[in-house]
């Protein structure tokens, strides 16, 4: 038995015939917060999508274990039921389906898959409203179509709200900080921090350091050329902020990647 919640080995992924991830390794224990950083096009979002099971990504090598299971063998909704949550970089609009209806359907689907009874409607509503208050979201948003006509900040807050309501074990946040002003960023970060618990893990996919000022990661990884080029503690993000990806990482990537592989092997 490993004590890892998530364990990725030598993951290789193609999109439309193009190699995006190529030998990626990553291990996450319960309670840990990992930040995945890297320049545009380095494969950060691809990693998030592959873990969630988005169609259109072809896994050409490697394996992903999640809670002792073969994650890649699971259907999208089975992964969700196993406690994996993806906060979308571009949250999807679903006109006609109200936010509250969506949340309720999702939560009851998850509970059903886990063999748990449906939640009492009133209890559910109260708990959602409490979390909305925590996120400083207007209650009116509950009765509008999912993300329909929401502002950028409202959409991102809505993703975090869903995370708080659905209570996953591993949440992957894909560029959740992008497009947020400083106040919205603080609200979102507060939501994320309230989610942290010793049995819950987080993977923060981000281009910039600024989210990490508010949500302190245990580990920072730099994605380069389809694999983890460099890993370190929270201080690595600061180095990157000052020196940029080119200075901070690329030049050292090859050697460190070699070392990383040796260590794993």
């Amino acid at each position: 038995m490993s004590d890892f919640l998530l364990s990725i080995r030598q993951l290789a992924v193609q999109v439309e015939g193009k190699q995006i991830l190529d030998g990626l390794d990553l291990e996450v224990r319960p309670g840990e917060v990992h930040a995945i950083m890297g320049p545009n096009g380095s494969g950060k979002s691809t990693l998030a999508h592959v873990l969630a099971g988005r169609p259109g990504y072809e896994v050409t090598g490697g394996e992903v274990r999640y809670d002792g299971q073969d994650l890649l063998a699971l259907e999208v909704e089975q992964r969700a039921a196993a406690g994996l949550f993806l906060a979308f970089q571009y949250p999807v609009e679903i006109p006609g389906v109200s936010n509250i209806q969506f949340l309720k359907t999702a939560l009851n689907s998850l509970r059903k898959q886990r063999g748990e009874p449906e939640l009492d409607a009133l209890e559910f509503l109260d708990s959602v409203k409490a979390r909305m208050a925590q996120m400083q979201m207007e209650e009116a948003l509950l009765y509008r179509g999912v993300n329909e006509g929401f502002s950028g900040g409202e959409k991102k807050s809505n993703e975090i709200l869903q995370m708080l309501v659905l209570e996953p074990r591993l949440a992957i946040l894909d560029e959740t900080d992008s497009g947020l002003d400083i106040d919205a960023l603080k609200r979102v970060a507060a939501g994320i921090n309230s989610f942290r618990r010793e049995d819950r893990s987080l993977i923060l996919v981000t281009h910039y350091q600024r989210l990490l000022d508010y949500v302190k990661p245990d580990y920072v990884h730099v994605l380069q050329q389809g694999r983890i080029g460099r890993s370190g503690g929270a201080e690595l993000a600061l180095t990157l902020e000052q020196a940029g990806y080119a200075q901070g990482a690329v030049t050292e990537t090859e050697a460190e990647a070699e070392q990383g592989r040796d260590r794993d092997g």
Partner: protein
Amino acid sequence: MATKTPPLEALLSKGYSQGFVTEIDEDSLPPGLDESVIRAIVEKKQEPEFMLQWRLAAYRHWCSMQVPTWSRVHYPPIDFEAISYYSSPRARRKDAPASLDEVDPEILRTYERLGVPLHERAALAGVAGARNSTNVAVDAVFDSVSVATTFQKELAELGIIFCSFSEAVQKHPGLVRRYMGTVVPYTDNFYAALNAAVFSDGSFCYIPKGVRCPMELSTYFRINAAGTGQFERTLIVAEEGASVSYLEGCTAPMRDEHQLHAAVVELIALDNAEIKYATVQNWYPGDAEGKGGIYNFVTKRGLCAGHHSKISWTQVETGSAITWKYPSVMLKGDDSVGEFYSVALTNNYQQADTGTKMVHIGKRTRSTILSKGISAGRGQNTYRGLVKVGRKAVGARNYSQCDSLLIGDRCGAHTLPYIEVMRPDAQVEHEATTSKISDTQLFYCRQRGIDAEAAVSLLVNGFCKEVFRKLPMEFAVEAQALMEVSLEGAVG
């Protein structure tokens, strides 16, 4: 989709839950149609002479007509000689049942199973599983005849007449004679002519001047006997300032043969009157291979005869092998309003050619059309509509929106709007879109733990929401549930 989705076909077994047959004695005429059949129907129903003459005129006119072929629906020719034009549950006594106690308990059980409350006390108390726990008066039509009408006494105190068509012919011949055929004359079309000749029952509803009907009126149509057609007629008259909300539901047993349902509905709204007519049509649609199912060829039309009158049609069409109908409004009175809200779903081999006609005759008349068509499997869904603004319809307005949703790549969605405008001050707008459920939306739902089938159902209900909102509460819930059943096996 690029990844596997669950084998959803396996879930099909839930299927059509109203497809059972009630075992009772039926009193049917032998198949075939000639003047003697019409005389026999008139005889059985002891109708006055004017009915016989009208039916015969309709029959003779029908004989001169050709089967229409202009719709986008395809089916083998119907053998009109193979249909029995009259079938009624054999009465325990010779005349119609005077109270519920005299109705065959098998029939009562049938309606109970369908969730239609015929026991008034039970209805008020809210029968478990009954569709309507609130006040709804029901006229239950079983094959060719009405078997029971509830709450008649309460309604009569307000001067409202709500009864079977047969009863209306006997008790209110003056009203029947005055209004029957004025909105849909028997010359209107092939199936309207056939209906006029052989119709056996239906509902009649009269709301006197200034009365707002305090409860929903409802007719529940059930085809039970094999080898029959159902030809019923509904007539609703709302006098000046009156208003009524009317619901119609339909089911039939699962059979391998196709059965014909050719109804006529006429609505008349006088000055300031309002009629809302809602249909949840769930006739047996046939099986996944397209075997069996009802041919639903219906003529529905409302006449806004008075000024400031309003007629609103809402329909949810999930059943029938073929649906062919255009609930229409003739906007004759000045400032009258017509509305049409429709959801039509075709799955497997179902075909629907439906839409509306809004004919603007009076001044400042307004109409709204909102149509949502969903095609899945090999379903074919056609919206066909006419908006006509006549020379005298000063300041007429219409807004139409027709959206189609495609699920799977073997189905079809067609939009044929006819717009004819003869007024410079008219304002007519038509918009239509065709789309599919996007992979991104589906992925988003599944990532949150909702399986593909539930996700499709959720998205489709979202697509239809604007129409469902127009239904009375109980019907809206039923409509949503129906959509789920009807969509089974649509994904994958």
